[in-house]
């Protein structure tokens, strides 16, 4: 607790508090009660999109990184191409390609339209989640490639010499050290991922950004919803940073100790 109360933090907190008080008293907030339920829904949608896309994206990123770092060429090459394409094109474009491209191919097949999956496929969120997941996987696949390479070869060789099977080397030696090495990077990347989520508002997913736009469009109040939106994202970013700090601290072994 003590290291929280450093002078610069107290100073910033005071400035923040003064700003909040000024905004709360001098600006128009009468629209808040009417839109509060919608905003809560929007925040929730932003959070689950973020959490699901990072978790699923990470699950894809590990094999992508492994394939590039140590896989045979026929696995490394496609993984490489995937990461390059995802990282080399704007996320907005990927979202639109999936939603208006892939998504509008489906209804041309009557058997898809009549299937039980159609009520889900006709909605927008699966495409948003898929696009965000692929994007996160593309960036983190590249990060994980470096992470796997950064684990000293000697350790892997030692493990092999001890007679460990390959999957055990991966789960006990290789992956934990690789993930540890990139935890700070992953924290930053997750914040970036959070900041990418408003893009899904363009395909009718009503997350928090879309709610703020809706308030502006309905009431012509411009700054207040945007300021509140900024505050929401700041809080979310703060939560992500704290979460990753906790994970880093709780790890079974720390770099500092090593």
């Amino acid at each position, binding site marked *: 607790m003590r290291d929280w109360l450093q002078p610069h933090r107290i100073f910033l907190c005071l400035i923040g508090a003064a700003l909040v008080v000024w905004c709360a008293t001098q600006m128009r907030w009468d629209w808040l009660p009417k839109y509060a339920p919608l905003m809560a829904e929007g925040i929730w949608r932003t959070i689950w999109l973020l959490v699901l896309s990072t978790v699923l994206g990470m699950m894809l990123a590990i094999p992508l990184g492994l394939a590039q770092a140590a896989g045979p060429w026929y696995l490394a090459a496609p993984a490489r191409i995937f990461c390059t394409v995802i990282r080399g094109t704007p996320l907005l474009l990927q979202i639109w390609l999936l939603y*208006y491209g892939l*998504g*509008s191919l*489906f*209804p041309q097949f009557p058997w898809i*339209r009549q299937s039980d999956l159609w009520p889900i496929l*006709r*909605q*927008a969120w699966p495409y948003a989640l898929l696009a965000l997941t692929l994007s996160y996987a593309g960036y983190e696949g590249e990060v994980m490639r470096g992470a796997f390479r950064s684990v000293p070869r000697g350790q892997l060789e030692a493990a092999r010499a001890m007679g460990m099977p390959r999957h055990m080397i991966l789960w006990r030696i290789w992956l934990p050290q690789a993930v540890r090495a990139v935890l700070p990077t992953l924290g930053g990347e997750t914040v970036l991922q959070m900041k990418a989520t408003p893009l899904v508002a*363009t395909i*009718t997913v009503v997350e928090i950004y879309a709610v703020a*736009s*809706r308030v*502006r*469009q*309905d009431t*012509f109040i*411009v700054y207040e919803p945007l300021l509140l939106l900024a505050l929401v994202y700041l809080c979310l970013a703060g939560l992500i940073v704290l979460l990753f700090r906790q994970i880093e601290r709780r790890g079974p072994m720390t770099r500092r100790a090593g």
Partner: protein
Amino acid sequence: MKRTMTAALALSLGLIAGAASAQTVKVGIAAEAYPPFASQDASGAWVGWEVEMIGAICAAAELQCEIVPVAWDGIIPALTAGQIDAIMASMSITEERMQTIDFSNKYYNTPTVVVGAKGVEMDATPEGLTGKVIGVQVSTVHQAYVEKYFAPVAGEVKTYQTQDEANQDLIAGRIDATQADSIALDAFLATPEGAACCEVKGTVADDPAILGLGVGVGLRKGEEELKAAFNKGIAGVLADGTYEKVTAGYFASSIYGN
């Protein structure tokens, strides 16, 4: 490009520098295409009924006008902030908008229709749209109408930045119906994709409090002089036959309404 547009307009208006060369009036149109009222041709020039009408009305009002494309959802803030001086973007005159801005007399008024997928049983009443997914363009009178009459019974109401996106999703089967201006939707139904998928399901019951008193020129409050000038221009094109002549180039019958 803006300069050439001004030049072209000035030419077409036959405005001579000497003629009461007051300040240029910046007329804001929606930057998103809304054919056949306003859209860009292959060379990027704005064309359409409304674009021609801006020229005609400004000429009759002896105003020197310059067309400025502004994103639709920010067009009222752009007006109040002074980036533009008038809005001529098929904006309906409504009570809610009148709280923020002023309007000239109407220059057109068209019926509002619901278009839906062929083979799906529905009509333009709350009973007929029960359980259906309806798409509308945000910040339009149609959104307000759908929210009031159809949202309580509809399966879902989805909002789009442009009518084109709603039409796209109607083709893709993600929404069952969309509501808009009959003319905008007629243009959509005239395209091969629109003709293949959809048909007019009916005209909605009128509600002037929401659907408005027709389309007028949006102006800042208190600018009586400019308002009088636009009213004079509108009366002028109606009286001298220019209105009918321009309309004949786009529509089968007059769209002035009653």
